[in-house]
């Protein structure tokens, strides 16, 4: 997430939100102009103060508004977790974001929440960074393209192979990346070569995953253009008849 360009740091706005599962603290970075998209960052409660602000600023550099929260404490069932994420997405909806204009990133324990969101909702993109509970739990049928990033240390290769096999038949695209020699904190950066490479590569992948999948918010002129287009029976331009 390091940048050669020194941009002013944005201090996330802190507030609380009432979700079906209780009240949670959230952090927000809102952007002026025409933001590229929005990202829901799911992290631990502690991460909201430590890792999230840096991540949110890095995403802002790529044009993404962000909302960060710890979606739930221990003991939440999977449907409750999904309901909590749904409640957080309402915050973004209030800002005018449609669901396909939103990506979700989950870190660590919240990585499984991001995968559950990818199974329950049709979002722009989903990413789980060093997720726990993903390799040994049931795998939802993906409705959102999902990227899973793992450190090799402590990640059983056979579990990764099983997950890859389960995802192969999913209706949506997914990719699993395992960083050799890296531990679960690979995304935080490290001085050693493998750790640094894993940190750098994983951030590149996260941004690219979002950029090629999150639907860009249309500009006012783009909306004007769209409103002038004749509605068509199919919104696909002519292609072959035998499909």
């Amino acid at each position, binding site marked *: 997430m390091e940048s050669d360009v020194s941009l002013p740091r944005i201090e996330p706005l802190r507030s609380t939100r009432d979700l079906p599962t209780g009240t949670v603290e959230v952090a927000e970075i809102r952007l002026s102009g025409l933001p590229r998209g929005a990202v829901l960052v799911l992290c631990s409660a502690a991460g909201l103060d430590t890792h999230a602000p840096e991540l949110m600023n890095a995403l802002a550099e790529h044009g993404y508004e962000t909302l960060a929260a710890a979606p739930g404490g221990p003991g939440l069932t999977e449907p409750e977790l999904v309901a909590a994420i749904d409640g957080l997405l309402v915050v973004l909806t209030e800002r005018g974001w449609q669901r396909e204009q939103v990506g979700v990133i989950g870190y660590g324990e919240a990585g499984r929440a991001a995968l559950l969101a990818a199974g329950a909702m049709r979002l722009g993109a989903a990413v789980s960074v060093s997720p726990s509970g993903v390799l040994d739990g049931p795998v939802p049928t993906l409705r959102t*393209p999902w990227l899973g990033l793992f450190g090799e240390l402590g990640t059983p290769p056979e579990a990764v192979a099983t997950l890859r096999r389960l995802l192969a038949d999913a209706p949506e*695209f997914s990719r699993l990346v395992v960083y050799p020699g890296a531990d679960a904190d690979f995304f935080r950066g490290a001085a050693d070569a493998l750790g640094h490479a894993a940190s750098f590569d994983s951030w590149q992948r996260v941004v690219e995953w979002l950029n*090629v999948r999150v639907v*860009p918010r*249309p500009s006012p002129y*783009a909306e004007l253009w769209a409103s002038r287009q004749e509605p068509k029976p199919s919104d*696909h331009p002519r292609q*072959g008849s*035998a*499909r």
Partner: protein
Amino acid sequence: MTQPSSRPVRYIDDDRDLPRFRVNRAAMVDPDVFAREQERIFDKVWLYVGHETELTKPNDFKTRTVAGRPLIFARDRRGVVQVWVNSCPHRGAMICREPAGNARFMTCFYHGWSFDTSGRLVSVPGDTAYGPDFVRPGLAAPPQVDSYRGFVFVSFNPDVEPLADYLAEATEFIDLVCDQSESGMQVLEGTHEYSVKANWKLLVENSYDGYHAVSTHQRYFEMVMASGAELDATALGDSIGVALGNGHAASVGGPNTGGMFGRPLSAAAQAERQGRFESLRGRHGAAWVDRMTGARNLVIFPNLVIIDLVMGVVIRKIDPVRPDYMEVTAWELVPPEEGAELRKQRLDNFLTFWGPGGLASPDDVEALETCQRSFAAHRELPWSDVSRGMVSAVPLGSDELQMRTWWRRWNELVNDEVLPPEPHDPPGDRFRGERLELQDQGTSV
């Protein structure tokens, strides 16, 4: 000094009295011929771009070159196969510079215009500078795109005939390949890509040339024999050559010749293979499946090759680049439901025979490149002979009816000269068994 002759070059000598069929080697070296081929063939007919099973997920894409044009072969968000010209309508840079991937949006790296896999322009950086009435261009597409049983073709000719009409009787041979899986044949991930310093038409000829097999591929056959196979030489002669209309043709082996050339399968793999064919008999009828078990080398005019031989199916696309240089891309088509052991042995045979580093393809490349080098003497030795089998009642696969069929179509398009087809007797019943609809199936054009 004598003046150079201004007589037009005759490229095809189709003498039915001798009989004799010859091709002028100038057709292999002349840049003007090459340019006419692009204009009169590649800009006019249906051309293969890829197989639908290469795009398994929404927003999967492959980049391809067809008739020199860079294309994006993609499955859009809704699952519809699309083909786009890989060029930004803004200032021309390629939208997609990856050979394959998955992306709902592709952004031109030159000025940042972004398009979705349905071809729509979705964002333009700083679009206020264009004003509110700016007409936002989407991606351009070939004027015609269509598919037959998963094989997707494009044409740059808006008035081209329907694909099924163009494929003519070749559809029957595509069916013989596609019917080998009840769930639908599938292209495996990955390609063989290689280039040949020779005219592209030489590889077309080579792709269904049964005559060269024993001499050119002696080393391969020695390897097969050394691995314990019992090669029945008479089976090599159990074949026919057939013209299929519109320049398409095939060399076709009799029943059970399909696995003839490969390293022998293990007993378990052989049993599975036999079992698969037996189950298909109940689906399509014995006569059709007997044909299915035979070898076939099919060329869809001008440059698509489908070969079902050596216990595998190869799809080969031949791209002319210069008169003396071509690029070749090949894929393996498999029944996805087959077992791991049979798949392993299929791939072994695929790699061993067809691979660019295998024991057969490099021999072909060497042969074609020496042809091309020798064509520097095309004025002293102008003609190549392609007459074999003209006198046959039913041409064999080792005859050259297939090439003559292709060349006559080439001559018709490039030189506006229509030559009549060759009269031959119909092939025997073993080569004419019909496909029966014994069970419901989801196969359609």
